[in-house]
């Protein structure tokens, strides 16, 4: 039933039928193809990480400067919120594209895992928004809310990174999640506007550092392809 003879035979038209390579070269070829296929199939997380890192760095940084008690606060609070909002929206678009794009044309279990994990981000942040809205509706004053929501948003993002690290057995992502969770928690001890500074530098900075590490980690792989 197998047609090995026919396939290996002279009827085959393409000239590159055999690899004129040593076993080692063949194995290296397979390895580099596999790495490239994995990169195309599973996307490049460093883009989404860097996007959120920049969003936190700029957004929380602006919030810190705007709510600073010095009289020289360069811009009003709404400008800071606008910066945070626009940067977060951009990061959200990058993350979504990074989840949806590599998966096009793929169906099956591994795709399902990625989608379920991706949806959980939307679900969790929507719920967090409503939790804070509920507190505001119940009369929590804005000054107190500003001590609460930034740390919470960062902590919850860290929880999802930790879960993603466990899911894909990625030690770096797991450690990033643990760091982010702790930064979110620690920020509340600083009060406003100190919490914004902590979240901007330690939170956003952590994400950017890991994104850079991922790029560096990939570089030797590229030279081998």
């Amino acid at each position, binding site marked *: *039933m*197998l*047609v*090995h003879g026919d*396939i*290996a035979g002279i009827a*085959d038209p*393409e000239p*590159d*039928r*055999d*690899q*004129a*390579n*040593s*076993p*080692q*070269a*063949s*194995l290296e*070829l*397979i390895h580099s*193809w*596999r790495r490239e*296929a*994995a990169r*195309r*199939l599973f996307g490049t997380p460093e883009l989404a990480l860097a996007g959120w890192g920049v969003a936190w760095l700029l957004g929380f940084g602006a919030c810190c400067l705007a709510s600073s008690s010095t009289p020289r606060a360069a811009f009003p609070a709404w400008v800071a919120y606008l910066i945070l909002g626009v940067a977060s929206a951009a990061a959200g678009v990058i993350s979504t594209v990074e989840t949806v794009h590599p998966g*096009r*044309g*793929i*169906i*099956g*279990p*591994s*795709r399902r895992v990625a989608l379920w994990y991706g949806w959980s981000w939307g679900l969790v942040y929507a719920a967090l928004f409503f939790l804070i809205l509920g507190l505001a509706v119940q009369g929590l004053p804005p000054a107190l809310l500003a001590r609460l929501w930034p740390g919470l948003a960062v902590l919850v993002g860290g929880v999802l990174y930790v879960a993603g690290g466990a899911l894909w057995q990625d030690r770096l992502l797991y450690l990033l999640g643990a760091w982010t969770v702790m930064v979110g928690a620690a920020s509340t001890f600083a009060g406003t506007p100190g919490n914004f500074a902590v979240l901007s530098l330690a939170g956003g900075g952590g994400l950017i550092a890991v994104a850079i590490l991922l790029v560096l980690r990939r570089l030797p792989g590229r030279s081998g392809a």
Partner: protein
Amino acid sequence: MSPDPAPDALRDLPSLDPVIHAQPRLRVVVALAALGEEDQVSFPRLQQLVGMTAGNLSTHLRKLEAAGYVRVEKTYQHRTPVTYISLVRTGRRAFEDYTAALQALLADAPHLTTRERVP
């Protein structure tokens, strides 16, 4: 080690599977093996993953299908025909055996090229 151990010593090594040994088909199998075990990939996406023309990919897929290594499933999505390709168990095993055979060759006779080893 004797100076020329190859001819007899290598006879027991598993020979390389000719279905996979053709470079474009190996590339297709590597891409399919990078997917999860029950994942399927659409024809145009696979084409993009391996960088082949549609005609070329079709030819190689037919041979892989004839060997029982891949399953080609034609279906409809929103009334548009879509073809999904997946590596079946036999194909996954053949790929595992192929890389294992390469590793065995490498361990036993790193100075020989693949072409010399395969009749």
